[in-house]
């Protein structure tokens, strides 16, 4: 197990994400309504922290999305599936919605999240912002923003290793870890 970012590192990465979302917003012109939707169970925490930095852009349009019911591996995970609430209290129709997740790998969660969003409403555009892109895609999905890009092989990750983002208050401290796979989180 090794740490690739500590508390300050995580804060810096979230700053970077916020800045690049802001740049997109500036380019997209006026009169656009922006919103953040985080995928449970770490993306929602990142979305909340981004919202603190983007208060003027998104206001209180911050939601969390549970994708359990949209997963394509439900029959395999079976009894391990835990359904949590989806909390999106604003109207996403015509919104510029930034989907937020912690680690992007296969892209399957993102596919599920997009389908779920489309069932909730009709956003004008859906963006994807992730804290870490570790590569390993199984679907044609690419992030608009990745604060930490590991796809260039700069940090070697073995096949049996996972990248985990830990965030308070769900976890004890903020950090990004690479560790050996061991069952489900």
């Amino acid at each position: 197990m090794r740490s690739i970012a500590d508390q300050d590192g995580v804060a810096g990465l979230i700053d970077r994400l916020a800045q690049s979302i802001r740049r997109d917003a500036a380019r997209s012109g006026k009169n656009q309504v922006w919103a953040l939707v985080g995928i449970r169970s770490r993306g929602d925490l990142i979305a909340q922290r981004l919202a603190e930095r983007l208060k003027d852009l998104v206001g209180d349009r911050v939601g969390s999305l549970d994708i359990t019911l949209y997963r394509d591996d439900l029959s395999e995970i079976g009894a391990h599936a835990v359904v949590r609430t989806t909390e999106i209290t604003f109207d996403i129709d015509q919104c510029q919605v930034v989907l937020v997740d912690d680690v992007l790998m296969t892209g399957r969660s993102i596919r599920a999240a997009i389908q779920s969003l489309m069932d909730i409403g009709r956003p004008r555009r859906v963006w994807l912002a992730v804290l870490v892109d570790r590569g390993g895609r199984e679907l044609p999905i690419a992030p608009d923003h990745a604060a930490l890009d590991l796809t260039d092989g700069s940090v070697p990750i073995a096949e049996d290793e996972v990248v985990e983002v830990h965030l308070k208050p769900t976890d004890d401290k903020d950090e990004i870890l690479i560790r050996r796979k061991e069952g489900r989180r």
Partner: protein
Amino acid sequence: MTPATGQPYVWTHKHLLGLDYLSAQDIRFLLNTARGLADVSTRSVKKVPALRGRVVVNLFFESSTRTRASFTLAAERLTADVLDFTVQGSSVSKGETLRDTARNIEAMGVDVIVCRHPLSGATHQLAQSVKCSVVNAGDGQHEHPTQGLLDLYTLAQRLGRMETFDFTGITVAIVGDVAHSRVARSNIHGLRKLGGKVILVGPATLLPRGFADMGCELSNNLDEVLPRVDAVNMLRVQFERLTSQAFPSVREYATFFGLTTQRLRQAKPGLVVMHPGPINRGIEMDSAVADGAQSAVLSQVTNGLAVRMATLFLVVGAQGAAPAQA
């Protein structure tokens, strides 16, 4: 939901036959799952793909409109296919009919059988004779677990206990024909497991002493009990099940055990009024009470959908992974 130490909780019940067979943790997990599913019904597309390609069969040996409609809609909101199978009372022995019918249906390749049957224990027998999941939608005078669960959910919603589903310090009166009521039994098991206190109220003829062994207080006096409780669950007078003279007249029953506007004044201001439906207006409660602000009757119906979605989702999820158990 995940304890600080040890293994994370996993739902292992392939069947839902009664709340008697679930732990407090099981019940809370199911109610939390229902919370996660409730918002599906408020969105523009009221459907999620969780049970796509699965088949749910409603196998009803007793007439039912509401429960069946609720299960059907719940299954459809999870994108399952639904088959309705109604068996009217016939001269054939019920036990044989049940087994044969169930095996015939199972041969069509179904994943869940939702069964209502006039005999207590029928769904247990069914669960033993088929490989798919069985959900009890009411068996005789035994249990009606999804009704019990939706009552717990509604109570938690009204009393602000959705975060914990813990009913410590809460007292609920279940009023009426307790003897014949599967709704009462499921409620008693559920409330007791989640920390609540239960007072059963009714005429002595419909209130067997044995219920005291389930940890309930028994009373024949609604007026005395009403000021002490946080919620009442008014059971329907089931004319179809009352064979002997259980009480002298409907009017007398209504006088002693009906929830009238006048009687409601003796209760705590925030009293939650529940009824499993359909209401005999003027008997179990006045129309003014049934339609009043304290009535949770329509919330019960709405919540029934979420609870049944959670039930179907979880029993299917436990298939294969779980050891065989009720």
